[in-house]
């Protein structure tokens, strides 16, 4: 379990990126960390990985304090940055060299992942394109079998097939003892992959809710006209008419559209903050 209590962080000489953030992340789940560019997603992952120190507050990852950078902590996490470094060695050698440090590293699964991503194991990482490198590093991340995996914009630079394969591989490999946090600003990629959403805005956590809860509270629909749709929260013009979000007062079932959810949350932060903090104070928009 990951516990973040009253955590604040500011880069030297700059304003706070995160301010009094509180979160609890459970095992067996895939968390989607959403937010605009520069809002603090990577910072939060850096804090969780022990690469950054919180200015105040406490972070515990599986009982370990990341800032202490203990061996027992590093054994349990894997953090894949947005721009991983590409040493001048092959993917196979990379796995050989780095895999030894992870007790449960699965070389067969690594090979399988590389094959699915169509990355040649013998090719030097430094010679790979950004997308290819990302795939090789993702294959490694998924093969470490560590309890906590933090992926920063994992599908950034991946082609459509690779994204699909990544989603498949990730969905198939998540174990009850694992907690995966994926940061992204590309919401569509996270659809059907994550089961919990965290939206950051203005140094705060705006939404922290499971997909189930979101579906329970909000109804996503496509309509030809806006008129006649009660309890409208948000709407967007689309080719067929309007994509809308309504309050789900009739307990209807609909797939959660993360992009719409994000746009709606950005447009009405107060409403979403109150809706998902349990103090619903409905502000009718549109």
């Amino acid at each position, binding site marked *: 379990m990951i516990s973040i209590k009253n955590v604040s962080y500011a880069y030297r000489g700059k304003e706070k990126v995160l301010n009094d953030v509180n979160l609890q992340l459970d095992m067996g789940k895939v968390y989607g960390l959403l937010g605009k560019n520069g809002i603090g997603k990577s910072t939060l992952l850096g804090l969780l990985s*022990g690469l950054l*120190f919180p200015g105040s507050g406490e972070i515990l990852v599986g009982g370990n304090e990341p800032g202490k950078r203990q*061996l027992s902590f590093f054994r349990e996490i894997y953090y894949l940055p947005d721009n991983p470094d590409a040493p001048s060695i092959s993917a196979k*050698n990379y796995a050989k*060299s780095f895999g030894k440090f992870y007790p449960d590293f699965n070389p067969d699964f690594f090979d399988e992942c590389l094959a699915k991503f169509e990355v040649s194991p013998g090719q030097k990482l430094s010679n790979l394109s950004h997308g290819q490198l990302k795939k090789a590093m993702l294959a490694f991340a998924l093969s470490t079998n560590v309890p906590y995996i933090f992926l920063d914009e994992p599908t950034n630079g991946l082609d459509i097939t690779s994204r699909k394969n990544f989603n498949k591989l990730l969905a198939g490999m998540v174990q009850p003892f694992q907690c995966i946090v994926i940061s992204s600003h590309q919401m569509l990629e996270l659809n059907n992959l994550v089961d919990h959403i965290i939206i950051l805005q203005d140094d705060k956590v705006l939404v922290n809710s499971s997909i189930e809860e979101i579906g329970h509270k909000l109804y996503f629909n496509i309509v030809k006209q806006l008129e006649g749709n009660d309890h409208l929260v948000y709407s967007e013009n689309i080719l067929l008419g309007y994509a809308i979000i309504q309050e789900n007062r009739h307990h209807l079932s609909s797939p959660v559209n993360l992009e719409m959810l994000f746009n709606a949350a950005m447009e009405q932060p107060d409403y979403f903050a109150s809706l998902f903090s349990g103090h619903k104070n409905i502000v009718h928009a549109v």
Partner: protein
Amino acid sequence: MPFSLSRILNLMRLHWNINRKIFTWMFIFLSLLIIGMLAFELVIEPSGYNQSRIQVILIASTIGICFLNIFIFKPLLQKEGASLLILPASLAEKALVAFIISYIIFPACCIITGMIIIKLTDLIYINYLGGITDTMIYDKFQYLVAPYLRFCMVFTLLIVFIRKYFYVKLGLGILVYMISTEIVDNGLARWIAGGKQPPGDSPRRHMDLPVKDLFVGDKNGLNKIQLQYNTHNGFHADETVWMPLNYMNIMIILFLLLLIFSFYIGYKRTQEQELTR
């Protein structure tokens, strides 16, 4: 366990895998530097090169090692994006491996490379070019080892103690290097000679005695090696007194302490660098 031999060995292998390109280029650079300096030496002194010039060559090579090490040590700890920084090895292991590679393995390889090149040059020069040389391989080794010790001092100052201001670091580094050259070479030579400037011959040739001989000497505070150098007659057993705090011994102990301390500070600094990068 904060230290595990298998992890340390794997870390070293990992560094070799990742940084071998840097290592290779540095060796090539160093070899070229030594060859170039020797070639230059042969041009300006066709009748045979002398020790002072050889010293200049080797000190120049060692300065090369010093500065190349700066470029090695930092990447060993900080490079590779997040992958090395979050690698499941303790900070002590990472710092130790970086220390071993940059302080011991790399300089040792450089010194050996330098010695081989110089020896080969000697052989070619003496056998094929008909030249003569008054230098011995032992002296060359000394000239390389002493600057290496100095390099530890400079390196510590450059990397560990001063955080910013590159040019200030560089200036101070050169200053410390010059001062330590004076201390280690001339000072040490004088101390070995019992406070007198050694006449002609290099005093370092008289240092090939067991280490324990550094800790015994006469009542005047000169140790066995110094006495041997002074008298050229060897040392008389009845004059022996235990003298662990001889000036030269203190210097040697200081060097060792400096090495240990630099590792400790390097460790702390590394931790800080990792956390505030």
